[in-house]
């Protein structure tokens, strides 16, 4: 097995408002994270990227359900495991870092308590050993005076420091896979660069693979080896990061690229993709991006394009190819 994580044809749906038909948030997504690799999962809000990651964690909300598909962690299907077995995997073999460092730590428990709890949950270490390990982790993620910080409450740390704590907590058990759900969205740009560098350093040192969920193409370019672009619950394009930035094929990906603010040319309006993401309950019949696509033809509106290889493992879901 070369892939630490392999998702095959994942379909996730949600029940809501007492309606009979379920809203399909993730529709047949396949993706894989190679061992030691950093893979980006990009898309707008509501495209299903967070739902995909929560399915991997087994943390879908009560009204959500994986309808079909496989989620293989190092070849083992997570969906076939019991709740208990999945809990043993969470925080141990797979960890997750959340978007909001301000609210991801329990405000009434000390940093030390929370990091130590995470360590003791998955190891036989006694209190003293777990504490020593926690201090070591805080030191590793670049927190000054880690011993003193152990006794601090979350509100006494800055956002960047808290995200470092979260990363330290996530990396404490040296997980095989780290899922980072927009870990830098809530941080300053300068802190963002530090956090990204920290994640890459830890990944290189510990051999952890990372699934990076983001809507920030800058983060992707900075950190990732390969990228999946999601739109409306489906993967629309997949390529290694160089190919994607050099010659992205899908009109949606192009739209995302064009929406990035640039210094030149001056005085031009920033491009934005017209329209909005379609409603989960009212998906277009043909290509899901067709209503917003400037190249859309009759064909696009009536028939749905398949995800096909357009050369060298570069996948694209578009008739134009």
């Amino acid at each position, binding site marked *: 097995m070369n892939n630490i994580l392999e998702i095959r044809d994942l379909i996730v749906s949600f029940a809501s408002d007492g309606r009979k038909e379920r809203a399909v948030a993730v529709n047949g997504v396949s993706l894989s994270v190679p061992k030691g690799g950093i893979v980006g999962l990009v898309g707008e809000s509501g495209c299903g990227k967070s739902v995909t990651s929560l399915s991997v964690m087994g943390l879908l909300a009560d009204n959500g359900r994986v309808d079909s598909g496989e989620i293989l962690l190092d070849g083992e299907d997570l969906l076939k495991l019991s709740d208990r077995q999945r*809990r043993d995997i969470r*925080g141990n073999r797979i960890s*997750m870092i959340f978007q909001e460092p301000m609210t*991801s*730590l*329990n405000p*009434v428990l000390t940093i030390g308590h929370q990091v130590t*709890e995470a360590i003791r949950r998955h190891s036989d270490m006694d209190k003293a050993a777990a504490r020593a390990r926690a201090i070591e982790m805080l030191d590793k993620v670049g927190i000054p005076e880690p011993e003193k910080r152990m006794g601090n409450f979350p509100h006494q740390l800055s956002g960047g420091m808290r995200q470092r704590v*979260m990363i330290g907590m996530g990396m404490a058990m040296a997980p095989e896979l780290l899922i980072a759900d927009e870990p830098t969205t809530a941080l300053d740009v300068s802190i963002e660069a530090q956090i990204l560098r920290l994640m890459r350093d830890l990944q290189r040192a510990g051999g952890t693979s990372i699934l990076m969920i983001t809507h920030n193409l800058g983060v992707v370019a900075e950190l990732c080896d390969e990228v999946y672009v999601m739109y409306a619950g489906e993967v629309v394009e997949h390529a290694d990061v160089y190919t994607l930035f050099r010659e992205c094929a899908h009109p949606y990906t192009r739209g995302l690229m064009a929406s990035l603010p640039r210094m030149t040319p001056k005085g031009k309006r920033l491009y934005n993709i017209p329209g909005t993401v379609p409603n989960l309950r009212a998906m277009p019949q043909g290509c899901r991006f067709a209503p917003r696509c400037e190249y859309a033809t009759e064909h696009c509106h009536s028939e749905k394009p398949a995800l096909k290889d357009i050369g060298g493992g570069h996948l694209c879901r578009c008739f134009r190819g």
Partner: protein
Amino acid sequence: MSNNKDARLFDAEIQPNDGPLASILHMFRVNHAALLGLILILLIILMAIFAPFIARYDPNQLNLIEMRKPPSPAHWFGTDDMGRDVFARVVYGSRTSLLIGFVPSLISLILGTVLGLLAGYVGGRVDDLIMRLADVVLAFPSLLLAMVVMYTLGSSILNMFIALSIINWAGTARVVRAQTLSIKETEFVEAARSMGVSRLSIVFKHILPNCLPNLIVLFTLDIPGAIMWESSMSFLGVGDPNAASWGLMVSQGKSYAYMCPWLILAPGIAILVTVMAFNFLGDGLRDAMDPYLKS
């Protein structure tokens, strides 16, 4: 609230690096009513512990020669219709009142917290069952419910604990359930779940500590409530007739209210002071411990 200005003052002066204890200490410096409440409560507790050293008479010693004497150097608060020393009875009565204040409040606090956590975290049918039960308790007139319990089980201090616990748990359960519902959706609970923390640990280690400030406030406000309930029930004649309680003293003194006002004034003022002391302290703690005001 009278201490709005105080609260603002205290927010501005608090350092971000101070712990919860520091903010409580600061609250006592600014909020003098709460400090007074704390001092009074400590005095009442000391009075209850050292009652034999404070009162010169046995509270139950009858003395038919010294009946209904007005306050004097020998009997500071006078004597009642059986010649018992009112001061001694007030001092010893603090034991009953504190016991009645603390024990049922603690029982209903624990009961209400566990049921509230269960209802909020598990949800579904468990939630429905617990909350409908709470609705029934809350919809029923509390005093009537407590009296029914006392009549059925008999008049004793233990049954008083049971009666007061039954009428008090529902309020606590509601507050805890509401907080659990909102806390279980927070990112830090999701983060804890993503670390593989078990449900039991999430409920007791992550959610419960977040409810704690409210619970402490609820507890300090439940205590005077329980003291009042006990007084009311003793006054109505369903209390424990053998316990020297302030409510019972008011009840027994009411026939002589015009002739011997000290009979109801002394225990009445004792009830008033105790209840107010706990209320002041509870209000102060609420201001100091509300973690969401600060962030």
